[in-house]
């Protein structure tokens, strides 16, 4: 099986190089297409840590969604196409309403009295691409 190798590059080697380049280009087109390989922007609603709903923010344009937990009822409504906000809540603090609109992956609205968290995941990451927000 063993033999002495050809030590001078030739036409056939160029074909291998072209094949690798073609493969790279092909894979680039597949995985870099649109830059959103992680999927579309999705809102995930959890109550006390358990997921209770998952939807695309655009779905809210048809009708707002209402959630009740821990004795609190809050309504989530669409805002400027891709964004969403808690439009009303009967919680005493109103922090969730005051949080305003969220529209980018990683942002969230928290309603402590209701123990509900609405978080945006997936989609084109926020240009800042942070993992945790403090303050």
């Amino acid at each position, binding site marked *: 099986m063993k033999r002495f190798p050809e030590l001078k590059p030739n036409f056939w080697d160029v074909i291998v190089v072209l094949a690798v380049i073609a493969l790279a280009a092909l894979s680039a087109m597949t995985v870099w297409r649109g830059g959103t390989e992680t999927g579309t922007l999705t809102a995930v609603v*959890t109550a*006390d*840590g358990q997921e209770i709903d998952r939807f695309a923010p655009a779905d809210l344009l048809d009708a707002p969604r209402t959630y009740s937990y821990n004795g609190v009822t809050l309504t989530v409504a669409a805002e400027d196409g891709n964004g969403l906000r808690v439009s009303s809540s009967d919680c*005493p*603090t109103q922090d969730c309403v*005051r*949080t*305003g*609109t*969220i*529209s980018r992956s990683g*942002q969230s609205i*928290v309603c*402590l009295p209701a*123990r509900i*968290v609405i978080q945006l995941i997936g989609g084109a990451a926020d240009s*800042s*691409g*942070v*993992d*945790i*927000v*403090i*303050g």
Partner: protein
Amino acid sequence: MKRFSILILTLCLCLTGCGKQTTEATAQIFAMDTVMEVAAYGEHAEQAVKYTEKRIEELENRLSRTKAHSLVSGLNRDGSIRHLTYDYWNLIARAKEYRDATNGAFDITIAPVMDAWGFTGDSFRVPEQSELDTLLKKVNSDAIQMLGSPSDSVTLGEGQAIDLGGIAKGYTSDCVEAVFYDHEIENGKISLGGNVFVLGTKPDGSDWRVGIKDPRNESGLAAILSLRDAYAITSGGYERYFEENGKTYHHIIDPATGYPADSGLLSVTVVADANGPDQEWVLPGNGTMCDAFSTALFVMGEEQALDFWRNGGYDFDLVLVTEDGRVVITAGLADRFEEVKDSGYTYETVS
């Protein structure tokens, strides 16, 4: 050849034996008036996160002032407590130390003043000056007497009450770090409201990117830090406040005046290294320190805060967001820090 196969087989077995199966576990915990997010990566991630939840529940039950049976409630009711466990005795001792270090800008005996403003029970009001003057006389944790072993007692001064809200979350993050080490977690994070602890790097090997919220814009960021094995804790007046007669009153009370601190700062972020695996696991560490100092330096204002950073004798770094639109970063963070485009802030590094 047979021997070689046996050798390979043994090696494979050995490798699978010592090889670690990394799993991810996350949880969302509602405690201490905030929502906490914990994520852990490692062989025992699942147990680590479960244990973290238990530990946080236990800490809240001991440190909360709104729970009647908590240690703090008991101490405030009786004025003294004996045979305190080592961990909580040290926590109160540390709080006294930070009070002295910051010349009273951080003080756990601020509790009666917090009550007067209604920040304890969410029934906000602006107290009379005479009322504040009376209450302020009680604010001084130097009056707390502490005896070590064997009595392990804490005795408050006449009419005093304490509130550990300024360090409870920081101490909790210290405890979570210890839980992570106990469970051999390699990468992990916990965020408790304004407090963050990150262990190691992200699972992909890059730094954790921690965004500091823009105090002027709820959904924006003022700065981004790249951190590993670190605490980052923010205090800001925008976190909790109420309005009365067109004036805004926030929850960080200056122990010197009894009024919400008005120092020209919008938020203070204190960053320090992780305690490391050698830290005795129940003792307050850098998490507690960051929490106390973020409050204290917010009260002090930019000039005093930077002076304390230079000469205070503690090892930490700062990100200050000022009312006049500047973000001031201390030198230690210069290469771990990113500006946020279009945030409207000007950035300056000081040394």
